[in-house]
């Protein structure tokens, strides 16, 4: 760790906020909550992938003792809505037909879970099966069953754009490489399944406790779905057991609200793990066909991509994810000429959505495999081909993205050096070793996600005892956002860290923020915190100046003491000033209300041209694997990860994000796969959907490439998604390196490895 550069709070590994509550079991998550008179809700889900609903008879279920209500589409406003304005293809419950196995057909509220479950069996639904389509490419073919009438070709969205001259680019290439890739469907595996607790209030108002990454945006969508005004919904986000992109809008929240309204009582609904697998928001799987041209020295002259993603039967964020997959990697390397044709199709499968990496993780797998394949053909080392193409600081890419700080080359050098210095251990007999590298980039606050909105804000309150409360509209889902915000606030205010608290997110008081996605929290949210602090500090210093008889701009603060810069002994504490202010303003306390916007115009929706993020993050990973030649089992034995995330605000949390990303990516590389047959998720639980455990984790070395990002709070940038982006390709590249065989599909399971080993050995014999 570099030393502190005069900061008080930035760069310190303070304990994460909420750690005490979690360690002592006091943290209240939605499943822990219980309200007086509360009922339990359960969802009836479709057993068919595509079927017309002929009739729903709820009378027997309603007659069961203990059942308080059964809700169907008839109990809702029956309007189309959805997370993305371009594809509003949702209903709260299935209307006229079901579109996937797991589709929400009806819900029951009862005095306990067992009764609610028993009632589900008593709901009689008559279905008439319809032909279904499951394959994303099949879905686009003429004559495929139509899933959503408004999209008769089953194409949920498409993107066709480019920059530069692709033909000229290919013409000047010394080598053309053409490959196909597939990144599979995977589940986010957060600890707390999707759930909600909803209490009906007077009139049409509701209080909703939901673990959600985008509380304020979801409130708009939910208000539309329920036919009420956003302010009619008080949305509280309590402690949250992870999200990783999955916890965006979901129908279980709305079904719970409908039941609460219908019964007039609080209702809690929790997905079982099986339901969460069947009807969560898994990763958008993507098929790629790629053609790239290279000069002898590895310089890329042209890149053409054709990709198809599977949206599932209705739209969560597929179009934005597919679009991201089309071009975000163009800020990882300097591709002069690029062209892409991207499609996202409807199929009768579970709707797919955001998963850490948001389409970029998929494309980084593709491009980092491509780089190794091209390097091999050109006789270059993996780092050589990457370095000649690598993004550099202060560069504007073909899409108008203005990269500022960029520690990509330094990241490559850092992991190489660390890997070279590894202790050289003997390879055990019957094992093969390999080493692989992969680079990554990401945005840090994608703009134009919710097109009318950009930036972030905060309210900072300084109370009569000098204690500070930070109100924000972003989201701590366990990653430590609140901790980082408290550190930023303490630094900006010159306050004691222990005096800063972060308020639970509650739409009744918290500002309107967009929330956690696109690795935006620290960069964009952090700037919003600074803005609120500046506003609060202005009031605080003016009051202190009046009390001390000194101009406010002559004052400074440290450790919650305000002092005259010229004579620091002339000072007042935050509590002295806070009390003075509150008691002289009839109880009004010091409140700073500030906001941050980048000021840039938003990217053009057609050409995608325009600076998409205030800052860009980079990194490079290396993995060393050991492969059992008899079983194909892969052990990742060593792992190095270097990241440019600007200035680290909390090194422990930063390292935690990186190590967590490595674990998550390792599972994706080697085993994780939703096995879906005829629309049914066969491995809908952790018995047959394996994520890595502690024993599977490698020895990890994390390296921070510290840059000072002018657009980030105190020079900081984000990390969350970048941490997973290069993991699968680094590990797969290492496997390919060990075996001399190419794997372009995820996951690379022991069975696939063993099959490859067998054919390889056969060839050797021949």
């Amino acid at each position, binding site marked *: 760790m570099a030393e502190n550069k005069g900061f008080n709070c930035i760069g310190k590994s303070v304990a994460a906020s909420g750690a005490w509550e979690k360690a002592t079991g006091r943290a209240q998550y939605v499943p822990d909550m219980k309200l007086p008179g509360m009922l339990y809700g359960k969802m009836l889900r479709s057993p068919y992938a595509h079927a017309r609903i002929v009739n729903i008879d709820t009378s027997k279920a309603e007659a069961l003792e203990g059942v308080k209500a059964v809700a169907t589409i008839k109990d809702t406003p029956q309007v189309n809505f959805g997370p993305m304005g371009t594809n509003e293809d949702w209903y709260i419950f299935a209307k006229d037909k079901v579109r996937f196995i797991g589709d929400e057909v009806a819900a029951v509220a009862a005095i306990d879970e067992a*009764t609610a479950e028993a009632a589900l069996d008593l709901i009689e639904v008559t279905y008439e099966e319809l032909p279904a389509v499951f394959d994303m490419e099949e879905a686009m073919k003429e004559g495929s069953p139509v899933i959503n009438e408004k999209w008769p070709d089953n194409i949920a969205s498409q993107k066709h754009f480019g920059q530069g001259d692709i033909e000229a680019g290919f013409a000047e290439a010394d080598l053309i490489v053409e490959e196909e890739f597939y990144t599979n469907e995977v589940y986010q595996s957060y600890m707390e399944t999707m759930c909600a607790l909803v209490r009906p209030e007077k009139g049409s108002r509701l209080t909703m406790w939901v673990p959600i990454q985008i509380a304020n945006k979801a409130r708009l969508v939910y208000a539309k779905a329920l036919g009420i005004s956003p302010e009619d919904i008080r949305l509280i986000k309590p402690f949250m057991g992870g999200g990783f992109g999955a916890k965006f809008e979901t129908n279980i929240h709305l079904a719970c609200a409908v039941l609460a309204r219908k019964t007039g009582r609080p209702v809690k609904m929790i997905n079982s793990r099986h339901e969460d697998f069947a009807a969560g928001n898994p990763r958008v799987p993507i098929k790629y066909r790629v053609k790239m041209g290279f000069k002898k020295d590895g310089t890329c002259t042209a890149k053409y991509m054709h990709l198809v993603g599977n949206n599932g039967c209705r739209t969560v964020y597929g179009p934005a994810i597919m679009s991201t997959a089309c071009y975000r990697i163009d800020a990882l390397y300097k591709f002069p000429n690029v062209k892409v044709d991207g499609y996202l199709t409807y199929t009768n499968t579970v709707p797919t959505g955001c998963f850490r990496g948001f389409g970029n993780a998929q494309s980084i797998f593709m491009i980092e495999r491509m780089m190794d394949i091209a390097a091999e053909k050109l006789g270059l080392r993996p780092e050589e081909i990457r370095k000649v193409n690598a993004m550099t600081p202060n560069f504007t890419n073909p899409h108008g993205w203005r990269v500022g700080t960029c520690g990509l080359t330094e990241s490559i050098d850092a992991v190489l050096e660390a890997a070279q210095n590894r202790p050289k251990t003997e390879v055990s007999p019957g094992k093969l070793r390999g080493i692989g590298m992969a680079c990554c980039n990401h945005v840090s606050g994608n703009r134009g996600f919710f097109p009318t909105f950009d930036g972030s804000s905060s309210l900072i309150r300084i109370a009569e005892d000098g204690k500070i409360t930070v109100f924000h509209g972003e989201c701590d889902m366990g990653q430590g956002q609140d901790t980082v915000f408290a550190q930023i606030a303490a630094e900006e205010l010159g306050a004691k860290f222990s005096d800063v608290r972060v308020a639970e997110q509650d739409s009744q008081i918290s500002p309107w923020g967009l929330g956690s996605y696109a690795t935006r929290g620290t960069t964009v949210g952090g700037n919003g915190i600074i803005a609120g602090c500046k506003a609060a500090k202005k009031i605080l210093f003016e009051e202190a100046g009046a009390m001390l008889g000194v101009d406010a701009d002559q004052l400074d603060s440290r450790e919650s003491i305000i002092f005259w810069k010229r004579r620091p002994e002339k000072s007042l504490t935050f509590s002295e000033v806070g009390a003075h202010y509150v008691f002289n303003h009839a109880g009004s306390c010091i409140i700073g209300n500030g906001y941050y916007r980048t000021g840039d115009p938003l990217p053009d929706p057609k050409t995608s041209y325009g600076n998409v993020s205030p800052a860009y993050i980079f990194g490079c990973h290396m993995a060393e694997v050991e492969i059992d030649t008899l079983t194909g089992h892969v052990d990742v034995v060593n792992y190095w990860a270097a990241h440019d995330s600007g200035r680290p605000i909390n090194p422990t949390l930063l390292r935690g994000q990186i190590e967590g990303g490595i674990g998550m990516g390792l599972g994706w590389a080697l085993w994780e796969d939703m*096995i879906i047959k005829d629309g049914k998720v066969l491995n809908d639980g952790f018995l047959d959907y*394996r994520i890595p455990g502690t024993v599977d984790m490698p020895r990890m070395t994390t390296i921070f490439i510290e840059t000072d990002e002018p657009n980030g709070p105190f020079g900081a940038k984000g990390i969350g998604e970048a941490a997973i982006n290069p993991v699968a390709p680094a590990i797969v590249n290492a496997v390919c390196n060990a075996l001399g065989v190419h794997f372009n599909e995820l996951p690379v*399971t022991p069975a696939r490895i063993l099959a490859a080993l067998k054919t390889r050995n056969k060839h050797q014999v021949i």
Partner: protein
Amino acid sequence: MQDPIYLKPETLDRALDYLTEYPQATLWAGGTDLIVHLEHKKLKVSGIIDLTSIPELRFIEDCGDKVRIGALTTIYEIQTSPVIKKEFAFLAQAALVLASWQIRTLATIGGNIVTAAPSAETGCPLILLDGNIIVQSKNGERKIPTNQFFKGPGKCDLAPGEIVKEIELEKLPHGYQTIYQKERLRRSMDIALANAACVLNLDGDKCQEVRIGLGAVAPVPMRAVKTEAVLNGQVMSDELVEKAAQTAASECKPITDIRATADYRRDLIYALVKRQLTALWKAGAE
């Protein structure tokens, strides 16, 4: 909803009385299989007879030429028992890789064999040992040889009204070595894709007697008789081990399911048998 009846007998006799009175009741040991079946809705419970407070069912006893293991003995107790480690090292090895530490402290050996999963950890070691599963009912005791207890996936030789009381196992003669290994997708807690156990008695390099058990590759833990025939009476060599491993891979009867294909399971059996024979042969030759 009516809550199930919950009974907690403190003697085996009492438990048998309850079982006569409530023949539909579920016998509950560690509950680690039962809870999963409840969660997957494969089981409805009208009553529970909790066996965990019956001390006479929980013991490991060295009786000279035999070892007796009470049905309620936990997997953790088997894993750490000096008697088991000394007499049946491979049973302790199997216990060590069953589930996680938390599960092992609850899970019992009786529950493991009654569940009769083709992948059950204790299955292969038990079928290779001479001994009996002893079950008790109101009508008396019944002894079932260990290699006849398993009848199919989830099926064992246990009649209504019977409770597994103990497992009695004959000690192996001096000089017999044992080994147990499982192959799984990940190194952390995972169900076996295939497992194998081996008992080997060598005279120098000559294989005097071998017993090989294969798990998760047939409806029940199976004895690899053809493979044993390849080895018995032969002088150990790399070629012989190779031939034995290939025989095991071809004589097992795996299925394809979401966990693995039949072909991959055969590959794993080949790997396991090859490694186990090599390990015991090299260790025995020392």
